[in-house]
């Protein structure tokens, strides 16, 4: 398999294919919102999304120009995502909504970590395979295993992500691999994931 590109975002910075790209002003209070405005891509649904979907959306839009996905069949792209805290941030918000007032439907629909794959599918009109795992840490070996399962079933491309929003903080690492000759190593993926300013 070949690594087509990767993107790592957090309040610590934006890295696309391991290059630091400046997007944040010195005193950003909402780094995701700031990144959205700098992207120059209008998508009103963005504001309704939970932090996980927002980060997946932002990372994808940053990575998209560097990776050519346009010519593929709409269900030859598989999505493989994981995190350790599920939908923790929104779970807390939803619980707060019914403790304080009444249960909020727009919060409840985001109390599942896989909703972000739905948002990406809607954005891109992708009908392919999708799955969300809860793992303790980002584990490149696990991803490579799952990607090989997808490829053995005839998929050409995998969009993979580790998207976290919870007590450990917020971060999103997205990468795209293609079923073509090449080598993607654990170390390489881990290095891309660990990018920091």
């Amino acid at each position: 398999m070949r690594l087509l590109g990767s993107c790592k975002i957090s309040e610590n910075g934006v890295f696309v294919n391991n290059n630091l790209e400046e997007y944040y002003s010195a005193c950003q209070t909402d780094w995701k919102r700031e990144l959205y405005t700098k992207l120059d891509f209008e998508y009103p649904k963005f504001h309704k999304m939970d932090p996980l979907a927002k980060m997946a959306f932002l990372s994808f839009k940053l990575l998209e120009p560097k990776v050519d996905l346009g010519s593929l069949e709409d269900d030859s792209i598989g999505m493989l995502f994981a995190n350790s805290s599920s939908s923790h941030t929104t779970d807390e918000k939803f619980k707060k909504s019914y403790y304080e007032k009444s249960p909020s439907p727009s919060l409840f629909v985001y109390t599942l970590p896989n909703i972000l794959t739905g948002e990406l599918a809607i954005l891109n009109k992708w009908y392919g395979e999708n799955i969300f795992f809860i793992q303790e840490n980002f584990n490149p070996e696990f991803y490579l295993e799952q990607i090989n399962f997808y490829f053995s079933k005839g998929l050409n491309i995998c969009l993979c992500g580790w998207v976290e929003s919870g007590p450990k903080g917020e971060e999103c690492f997205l990468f795209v691999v293609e079923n073509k000759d090449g080598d993607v190593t654990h170390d390489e993926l881990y290095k891309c994931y660990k990018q920091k300013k």
Partner: protein
Amino acid sequence: MSDLKEKLKAQIIKQLNLEDMNPEDIKDDAPLFGDGLGLDSIDALEFIVLLEQHYDIKIADPSEGKEVFQSVNSLAAYIEKNS
């Protein structure tokens, strides 16, 4: 009535997370669902929550809400009628 409409617009923006919008961006007679603001079925449910929390009006069945939530005008008229 116009105070109510302005208040409603601010509440809609807050309840539905329409962060990019200002009250003056929402016209009184603009369709809220489908075309126009492009709200969806989950947003419709948040309207039901909004009516209950801010105006003490209970809508038991989401399908009742269809007529009511057409526009800020219809929403304001419904609130005036049921307060």
